[in-house]
């Protein structure tokens, strides 16, 4: 199957590891992955910050770049949710990684091996906009050697929320400190999720607190063969 990778501007610039893992994983599962260089940003930040009129051109650009592909896969639940809602002409062909693996490729065991203690934070947009349900957990449960620990208050927002994290920094931090407490309670080595934006936020506090807990995108665990 030929698929286009929609990396997102955020991952492209700050978290290339998530994208590399998606490529490794999909190729291992027999997909032919293409990366359209013309892709930039889907416009989510503009729309959610009140600048929808600045995002129109980005929506048009998205369609121009990806229209030739049958399937577009992305390691960001949040950006996929945005595309699906705001760019309906292409929305149904754009998939978040775990949706693509289970619904389109029909695999649950992706042949990964990751012998570490891991906890999973289901992001708000994957839960409440994309309705991915337990797909990420089903994939993680099949990983060899993984010690998957349930996260208390998992469905609750970590406090990132895009510009919310900066505009309402104090409230955002109050939310984050509860999320981090729950992560630490699991005694996991790794906190994973379907969005690096939430992970940057959670990881920023884990690092500031010198907790030693790492954050990894779920693609990096599913691609791992340790």
């Amino acid at each position, binding site marked *: 199957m030929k698929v286009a990778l929609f990396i997102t501007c955020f991952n492209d*610039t700050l978290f290339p590891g998530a994208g590399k893992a998606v490529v490794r994983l999909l190729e291992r599962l027999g997909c032919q992955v293409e990366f359209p260089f013309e892709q930039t940003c889907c416009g989510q*930040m503009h729309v959610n910050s009140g600048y929808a009129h*600045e995002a129109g051109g980005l929506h048009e650009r998205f369609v121009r770049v990806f229209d030739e592909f049958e399937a577009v896969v992305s390691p960001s639940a949040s950006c996929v949710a945005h595309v699906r809602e705001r760019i309906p002409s292409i929305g149904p062909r754009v998939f978040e990684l775990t949706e693509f693996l289970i619904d389109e490729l029909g695999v649950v065991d992706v042949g990964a091996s990751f012998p570490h203690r891991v906890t999973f934070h289901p992001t708000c947009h994957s839960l409440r906009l994309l309705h991915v349900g337990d797909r990420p957990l089903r994939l993680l449960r099949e990983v060899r050697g993984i010690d998957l620990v349930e996260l208390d208050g998992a469905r609750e*927002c970590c*406090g990132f929320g895009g510009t919310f994290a900066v505009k309402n920094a104090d409230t955002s931090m109050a939310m984050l400190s509860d999320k981090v407490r729950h992560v630490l309670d699991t005694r996991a080595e790794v906190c994973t999720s379907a969005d690096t934006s939430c992970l940057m936020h959670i990881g920023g*506090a884990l690092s500031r607190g010198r907790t030693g807990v790492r954050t990894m995108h779920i693609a990096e665990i599913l691609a791992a063969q340790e």
Partner: protein
Amino acid sequence: MSFQSAAKVTLRDAQLRRNVGKATGLIRAKRERAVAELPDWEALRDAGEAIKARTMATLPEQLERLEAAVTAAGGTVHWARDGAEANAIVASIAKQHGADEVIKVKSLATDEIGMNEALEAEGIHALETDLAELIVQLDPEDKQSHILVPAIHRNRAEIRALFERTIAQGQTLGYEASAIAEAARLHLRHKFLTVPVAVSGANFAVAETGTVGVVESEGNGRMCLTLPRVLVTLMGIEKVLPAWQDLEVFLQLLPRSSTAERMNPYTSLWTGVREGDGPQEFHLVLLDGGRSQVLADEVGRAALHCIRCSACLNVCPVYERVGGQAYESVYPGPIGAILTPQLRGLGEAPSLPWASSLCGACYEVCPVKIDIPSILIHLRGRVVREEKSSLTPEALAMKGMAAAFATRRRYEAAQRLARLGRGPLAKAALPGWTAMRDLPEPPKETFRDWWRRERES
């Protein structure tokens, strides 16, 4: 004060955070159980949404039908453009009956227009009879912080101390909830039996029959609605329902979403006046108070569907941390963040549409399916376009980024800048971020650089 500044203050109050966190956590779990009992819950939500949308589309007609039906049943209908008109109407009715005191059923609409203060200025004391409203009223420093549980930010020890200082007149009340409540009961009972005028809000008013309804848990409402000679009900115009049958839907949706009960303990429905039974004079004041303005906004108008259940407050991670007072409105939480700026005018509360991480928990529980996150985004757009200069640093940064993302060449140049910690976004965001969180080390190469190196060389 902006939401950000107000939240900074309330976030520092550790006791408040514990009180609100504990209470919302409890009621959240109870609501989930109450809702799970109904196999047709989603169908009920759809019905609630549809009835509200249809009502809003025919609002003028429904209100005129309501007026005719109430009048035919012996009531008097008053129309109030704004809070000042509504308060003047209520004050003049109280004065006609020589009342220097009125008893009140919990009502958000009266709080919205500051009726207690307006009546006080006319020499009429408005006594709150809902327990939580009474708690808030007894402390001049205090303010409501929740739609359903106005004193949610107070714990038992604080309330006991407050009552001992005020209505219990120096008695020691002990730590039992029943003993503390008894002090309020004794204080109020005398008022129910002697004050001649009551003021209430309304949960619903049925246009078809002219029936007005109030649901409550304490029975204070039932006494206010039946014992005094004169009853004045203030109601926002959006509370009208076309048909009696519509109550079937809302009397299921409201209690389960609100108090997590199958049915609320007291449901009072009355139609005009009846000789020898209940109040002999009934006035219905219909309040616009900015609602027509809200109705004109095609996206924002769904905020008027709200039935004031407070489920969105109880699940909101922002509300849970900052409490209701940070919203500086009688409508706090997610619904307040979309209702207050629309009712008052965006310029009066421009920071409220940003008081959300857009996590979507509110939409998930709303019994009439108000898409609060989408309305928040819509209102952010309106604030940006209507209330702010296009030359703010943020507007310029957004414009700059849109331009940078418009071509591949500019985008790749912007990436290089961003990785060096420069560029408009990085500049605007960095201090707020790094005060409490570390930034990740910038990667050695972008994804596209890696792809170019690995795949295309």
